């Protein structure tokens, strides 16, 4: 389990232990990875983060176009495993959680502990937000590499 921000680790560890999730990925709504559990390859992780952010954006837009209350959860159930995509607001903006789980747990259980994870993350968020800076291409590449190192120990 690895996280860009260390305060995310404890709530995430509790969630993984309680829900028996096989894989968990936390990202911002723009697809920037915040933390992960169980993923092995950087390329897969970044692709999945981007796809998850795309699903959140398109689901939110469908609800807006139809005048519905915005969706917050998408669940796909497969024969051997399933995934839950959930998005929620934190003091650091909107985050997205992707959880992959198997027959050792249940969708309802993952949802219940996801609600708890959101509460725990909100409670654990440090009071002061990081300083906002202008984003430069050089900074972006350096930060991306630092994030990958933090997430995969490379």
């Amino acid at each position: 389990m690895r996280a860009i921000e260390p305060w995310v680790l404890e709530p995430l560890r509790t969630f993984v232990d309680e829900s028996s999730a096989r894989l968990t990925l936390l990202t911002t709504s723009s697809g920037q990875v915040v933390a992960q559990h169980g993923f092995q390859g950087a390329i897969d992780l970044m692709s999945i983060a981007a796809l998850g952010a795309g699903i959140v954006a398109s689901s939110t837009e469908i609800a807006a176009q139809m005048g519905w209350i915005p969706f917050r959860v998408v669940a796909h159930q497969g024969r051997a495993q399933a995934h839950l995509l959930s998005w929620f607001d934190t003091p650091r903006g909107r985050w997205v959680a992707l959880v992959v789980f198997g027959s050792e747990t249940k969708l309802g259980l993952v949802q219940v502990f996801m609600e708890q994870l959101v509460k725990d993350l909100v409670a654990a968020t440090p009071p002061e937000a990081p300083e906002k800076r202008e984003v430069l291409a050089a900074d972006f590449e350096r930060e991306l590499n630092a994030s990958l190192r933090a997430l995969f120990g490379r």
Partner: protein
Amino acid sequence: MSAGFEELLEGLTHMRGVKGALLVSAEDGIPVSGALVEEEQAPALAALAATLLARVRDLTTQTGHEAPRFLHLQAADGLLLLAPASNELIVVGVAGREALIGPLRLEMLRIAERLH
């Protein structure tokens, strides 16, 4: 569909000491129908009930016994009762200490039988 399920559970919810009754999807652990006095607890109760039943099913199967027909958990302040209705649904009852277990058990098994 859900209205029919509610009707089915109505007798159970009016029994002495019953605090709530749910029909739960066994596969997902999600409430399908029912009512609890503390309604916000329904998702957690459904998820935990389905997980518990799956674990007990595994245990009984691995020890060479049949899948359980009824589970009765006695806590300090009340009861949690589970009756698997089929491979898809579980009848869940929550009751206080004043509940009469015999009639409650019979009613839950009757509901489970009707859902088969």
